[in-house]
């Protein structure tokens, strides 16, 4: 069993976004979720630097560097989109107006603590940006990340070892092996990669996993079946 590719993980998240929802895709891996939204999708993407209804990357040579996303890459605007200043943009974020924020993470704890801004272990200056505002403000906070670190250590932990972005905010975790819901009782498994086992997943997960209902199955292409 091979973990989901980055593309398949992005597709899996895209397929779960609420139709007609207002969604912010964090910088890094979450940005690629946009590539897997069907063209008929009613999802409206928000960019923290003051854009609503973000469209795809413009064709080469047609970039407008006054129209960029939070990752500072050129974007386009869909019909019905709008521009606004950062104060209104962060009012949207902090004020609970976004349905979902999809964020990358270094670690997520059993109770939904999020650590996604610094591993604290290099000499680089730290940067926080708008991830923390999203993590506090969006109605649902989804994390997408590899299930473990490159050297196999769990990222889903009892307590985050890294400096926190926000406490008790993550509602759902999409990894390259599973989909988990953060519930009052703990981490509830929703879906598992085809070929993987609950015991195997638990081995890669520091926090205990609950299986409250019937598990769905994740296919290699990122689709999920009952």
């Amino acid at each position, binding site marked *: 069993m091979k973990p989901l590719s980055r593309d398949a993980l992005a597709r899996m998240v895209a397929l779960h976004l609420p139709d*007609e929802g*207002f969604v912010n895709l964090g910088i890094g891996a979450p940005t690629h979720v946009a590539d897997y939204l069907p063209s008929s999708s*009613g999802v*409206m993407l*928000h960019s923290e630097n003051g854009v*609503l209804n973000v469209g795809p990357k413009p064709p080469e040579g047609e970039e407008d560097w006054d129209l960029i996303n939070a990752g500072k890459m050129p974007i386009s*605007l869909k*019909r*019905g*989109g*709008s*521009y*606004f200043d950062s*104060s*209104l943009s*962060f*009012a*949207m*974020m*902090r*004020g*609970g*107006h*976004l349905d979902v924020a999809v964020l990358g993470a270094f670690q997520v704890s059993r109770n939904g603590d999020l650590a996604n801004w610094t591993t604290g272990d290099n000499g680089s200056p730290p940067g926080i940006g708008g991830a923390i505002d999203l993590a*506090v*403000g969006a109605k649902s906070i989804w994390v997408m990340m590899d299930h473990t670190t490159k050297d196999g250590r769990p990222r889903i932990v009892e307590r985050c070892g890294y400096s926190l972005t926000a406490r008790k905010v993550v509602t759902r975790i999409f990894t390259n092996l599973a989909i988990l819901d953060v519930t009052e009782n703990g981490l509830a498994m929703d879906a598992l990669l085809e070929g993987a086992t609950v015991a195997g997943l638990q081995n890669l997960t520091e926090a205990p996993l609950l299986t409250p209902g019937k598990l769905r199955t994740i296919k290699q292409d990122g689709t999920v079946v009952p």
Partner: protein
Amino acid sequence: MRNVVVRDAEAAVKDIKDGHTVMVGGFGGAGLPKGVITAVLDAGVRELVVISNNAGSSDDDLSLWFGAGIVRKIICSYPRNAQQFAEQYRAGTVELELVPQGTLVERIRAGGAGLGGFLSPVGVGTVFADGKEKIAAQGREFILELPLRADFTFIKGNLADSLGNITYNKSARNHCAVMATAGDTVAVEVDRIVDVGELDPENIVTPCIFVDRVFTRSR
């Protein structure tokens, strides 16, 4: 695709309940969603808490709500020339929370922007500081003002598209643009509904993320 256009004012006020808190846009008649005034009356709800700049001064505004006795409390800045309200106020059948106008709009903004409140210099050393927490910051005394939110926001726009993007007309923008951010359900009465893409993205004042219902008033 998202479409928030509803048939009429009656549909715009659907699910309003007794005891709800309701923001109503407008400064005088500008920005006041007049179709909503009668629709809320027709809905038969009572015990409303109203947040608005004024308390009605003519025969087609909040005066009708006070006349019908459906308001339990109003949070406003300038309830002058408001005959129906004044009668209820003198009779003690309606509660008034008087708020400086800038504080009113800032409290609404805080409610919409997810803030827990703000430190205001307005009202320090006056009765408007009574009962409020005082906080010193940077060597000066401030009043802690708390956010306002509502179950429903009713405002008046000029143009809307079916996604719910809104523009306003001249000084009718007033409190409406801020109130649009602070209601659980935001319904906007507009002069005209245009096709998606017709509004210039630079000139949309209230992006559709804030708007749940849009309607044009039947005449």
